[in-house]
Each structure stands twice: as structure tokens, then as C-alpha cells.
């Protein structure tokens, strides 16, 4: 078996006396969608921050594609192919939808120290961005200011920006947060399509979506992974049922 795409070894994050990430270890294989679930306060978002580099780690290692990225900052990680979406929408509201995505395309294609040519007219950037927008279903909205999109559209834009950096591993932090039933279905279909193309870590509260989409699931409780396995294995895991679900039933 080949080495995993991402290997997390005994990662630690403390805020003062509070241990949020407690020697967490986890492997993500190339090509899989790996969901991370856990009760509120289990440390999922902190973990994503540590993976993406917006929080530093006090101990442990993060290996990405066999390279130690524990001490790289966020832009460096992104350039190695580790992209994230934000739980709370984070876009450039003043720029057009197309520009939001084109910037991400620009980030991975050539220099950004180009001062005089009008970026609006750079066909390669625009074409690549437009293609991605078409994929996420925002093709018709590309000329609109991103700030005026609906919430559901912004969530899709958020994903579009993340995939525009051409990542090898996509960290999706609650992509369905705040979406209505219909919007959520659109988004789930998009995720199903994306998983054929990208390795994905998915943090999500919507259990239906998680069990429907994920290849493997890790359950986080109090900053530790208490179980990892296929959805069926997790469903059957007694420790998970005990710790996470209490006496409730999974359906």
C-alpha cells in the first residue's frame, strides 16, 4: 500500500490549560473523501485550522505527501496543494464572482508580480475561472459582485475558490452550514462530483450527507480520534455509539 496523502501524528493544540487537540493522529489516503465528525466542542474546527496553517501546533507532525509541513505557513501549504474552505463564508465581496475565482487560479499559475497588463483581459485566467464556476453552477453569475450573492451561492463560491487553487487535498469546513434543504441538495451533488477528482477532508454536521458521501469517517471526541472506518464500520462501532451518540440510534 502506498503512503497516505496526509498523515497527522500526535498533533497537539493547547489554549492555556485547555487541551483542544490531544495527540490527534489521522491518515487520509489519496483519492478518498475522509469525513471528520464529532460532537460540538470536539475540536474539529481547531483541527482544520491546524491543518491549513492558520493555527500553529505545539507538538506532533503533519506530513503531506511525505513532506513535513508542520511549520509551514498557510500560503506555503496552499502552494503545496492544501486548500481550504471556511466555515464562515470568506470571499472578496467587492470583486466580481469571476474575479474571486480568477485570483485563485492566478495564485497557482505563474507570477502575480505582473504590473501593467489588465488582468480582466487575461483569457487563460478568465477561462479557467469560468469553467470552474460552470461546474459549481454559478456560471450565470460570474459578472456579479460577490457580496450581492445569496448565502447558498456564496457557499458554492467558497468551494469554487478552493478548487480553483488546484489542490491535491481539499479541506471543507462545514460546506452545508446554513443552507436550506434545496440548496443543500445542490451542494451535496457538487461534493459527490468533486470527490471523484480531489482528495477531501470534510467536516460536517449534516450526518445524512456525511454517511452518504464519505469513504471513511474519523470520529473526534475531546481532541482525539476515537475511531476511523467506513460509514458502515462507524455505524457499528460501539465506542462511537457510546461516546458520540449516547443511546441514540443511527439511521
Amino acid at each position, binding site marked *: 500500500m502506498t503512503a497516505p496523502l496526509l498523515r497527522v501524528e500526535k498533533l497537539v493544540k493547547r489554549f492555556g490549560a485547555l487541551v483542544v487537540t490531544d495527540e490527534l493522529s489521522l491518515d487520509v489516503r489519496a483519492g478518498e473523501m475522509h469525513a471528520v465528525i464529532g460532537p460540538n466542542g470536539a475540536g474539529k474546527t481547531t483541527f482544520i485550522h491546524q491543518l491549513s496553517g492558520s493555527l500553529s501546533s505545539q507538538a506532533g507532525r503533519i506530513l503531506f505527501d511525505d513532506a513535513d509541513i508542520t511549520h509551514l505557513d*498557510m500560503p506555503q501549504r496552499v502552494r503545496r496543494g492544501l486548500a481550504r474552505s471556511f466555515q464562515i463564508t470568506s470571499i*472578496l465581496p467587492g470583486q466580481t464572482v469571476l474575479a474571486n475565482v480568477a485570483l485563485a487560479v492566478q495564485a497557482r499559475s505563474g507570477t502575480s508580480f505582473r504590473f501593467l497588463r489588465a488582468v480582466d483581459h487575461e483569457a487563460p485566467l478568465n477561462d479557467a475561472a469560468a469553467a470552474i464556476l460552470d461546474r459549481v453552477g454559478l456560471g450565470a453569475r460570474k459578472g456579479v459582485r460577490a457580496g450581492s450573492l445569496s448565502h447558498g451561492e456564496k457557499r458554492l463560491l467558497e468551494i469554487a475558490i478552493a478548487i480553483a487553487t488546484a489542490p491535491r487535498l481539499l479541506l471543507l469546513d462545514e460546506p452545508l452550514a446554513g443552507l436550506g434543504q434545496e440548496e443543500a441538495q445542490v451542494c451535496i451533488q457538487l461534493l459527490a462530483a468533486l470527490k471523484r477528482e480531489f482528495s477531501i477532508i470534510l467536516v460536517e454536521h449534516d450526518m445524512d450527507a456525511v454517511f452518504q458521501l464519505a469513504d471513511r469517517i474519523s470520529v473526534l471526541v475531546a481532541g482525539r480520534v476515537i475511531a476511523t472506518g467506513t460509514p458502515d464500520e462507524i455505524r457499528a462501532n460501539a465506542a462511537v455509539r457510546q461516546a458520540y451518540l449516547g443511546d441514540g440510534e443511527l439511521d
Partner: protein
Amino acid sequence: MSQQQALPATTLAPASAAAWRVSFVALLFVALALLPIAAKLGAEGYILNLVTRALIFAIAAISLDLILGHGALVSFGHAAYLGIGSYAVGILASHGVEEVLLQIPVAIGAGALFALATGAVSLRTSGVYYIMSTLAFGQMLYFFAVSLSAYGGDDGLTLPGRSTILGMPLLKADTTFYYVVLALLGATYVLTLRITRSRFGRVLNGIRENPARMKAIGFEPFTYQLAACIIAGATCALAGVLLANQTGFVSPAYMTWQRSGELLVMVILGGIGSLWGAIIGALSFLLLEEVLSLITEQWKLILGPFLVLVALGGYGGIAGLADTLRNKLVRRGQP
């Protein structure tokens, strides 16, 4: 810094707004190009001198607007670059080098170097701390110039005359000098505008709007902000070269913190982030100052409340106000 408010002008639909701005700016430059002819009617030197000075400050204001409006970097020490540019002229001239084609590269290089060195430190901070660290470096340079006894110290030094081009005294005539300054302003405006619309400019604007997002797609803000500071510093140093030539005199008074504050006021008054607002801001601030001081010795009693009102209006300066008015007109024109 409330960054969302930084660019009121961009709320316009881009295409028509661009067209109206282009026509306005074109009109402005045509008017400025015709001014020397109108000035022939009387007081030529005075009017040319006054407007030349305003145009020079417009170049400085544009350079400040690049980092302020597009990078949200509020520099409270920008006058330092005026000083660097003018001292490059003064010091070189006092050693017999009056060739502007040598003075300009030296000034621009020195401005860029100072921006590189101070930006590398200042950009570690943000918000008000950034503002104050730029002030600190501006003040250090000011006191350094005051202590430069060899070059006049506080009294400054008088230039033997305007700089030469390829050894010829081409800048000597006020009208020629005016057109050179106007051309340089035009070039600065066009180049800076293109920068803001380039790949680099888009990154810079993105960092202003949402630095966390930009980091998450792989841009390190520091690098781009530093580059913007260097461009702005070099441009402003060019304005310093012109200022020295215009006054025939170089002095630490060009780089007091009050002067930095005036540059900020020009940009905010004009409307930040729109570049042509910087031109309008510099022109209206300096011309207003002059016109009001002709009316009364107590002109600050008028200028002060005027600035307060512009700020309270919250239109985003004169450029923002113009855009708002135009939007109203356009809407009225529609059924």
C-alpha cells in the same frame, strides 16, 4: 480599519463607470493642458507655479492612494519620500550633478530602498500600529535631515537652478516645466491605474478586502504589500524631485508629520481608491487653501469646517460624491 468602506466608488456597475471616469479624467487633463494658454492673460508665473505645485502634490497623492486606497495601508509618513526625492536633487546638485536623468534614478532608488527597509518593519504590524510605525520612520528621517549640517540642516539648501536634461537647461522655462510635470502626472496616473488593474493590483485589493481569504488561496500579504510600498515610495520620490525643482529649494520642512497629514487629507478629500480622486483632492486642497487665503487671513476658519463637513457627509470624498451624483442622474434618466 473598516476596509469595506474603503472603496465606495466600486459600487458602480464597472463598465459605465469606467467610461464616465475616462471621459472625466480626459477632460481634466485637456483643461490642465490648456491652462498655460489661459494663464498668458495675466499673472502667468503665479498661476503656473500654483498649479504646478498642485500637480506635483497630485503625483504624491496618487502614490499614497495606491497603498491607502488599494492596500489599506495608511501611511502617516509619506512626506518622507517627498523629502528623499528633493534631497536627492539638492545633495547631487550641491556636488555639481544637475542632470535630472541622474537625479531621478537616484531619488527613485533611494525612495524604494527606504520603503523596503521601513516597510519590512512596519508591515509586521497592522491598523493603527502600522500608521504609527510609518510616522516613526518619517520622524526619524525628518530629524536626520535637520541634523544634516553639511546640507543646510534646518535651513535647507538653495539649488543653483532647475535641473538640466542631458546637460541642457530645458526645464528653465516655467511653461516647459509645467508640461513636464503634467506629462509625468499623466504617466503616473496611467501607470498606477494599470497597476491597480493588473494581476498584482488584484492581489493587493484582495488583501485589503480579506487577508485571511488571500492567505487561504496561497498569497502571502507581506510580499505584495511591501512591493506596493516600494512602488509608492519610488513614485513619491519622483514628486520630491519635481518639488525641489519647482521651489528651487530643499528643506526638512518638506517632510514634517503635518505634511504627511496633509497628503492623507488630500487623498481622503478626493476620495480614496479611485486615483483620479487623489488628483482632484490635491488640486482642490491646494487651490482652496490659496483662494481662501486670498479672501481672508483667517482662512483656516473656513477650510477646517469644510473638511469636517466633507467627512461628515460620508460620500467617500469628492470622487465618491461625484459618483453618487452621477448615479442619481443616471437613475433619473431611466424610466
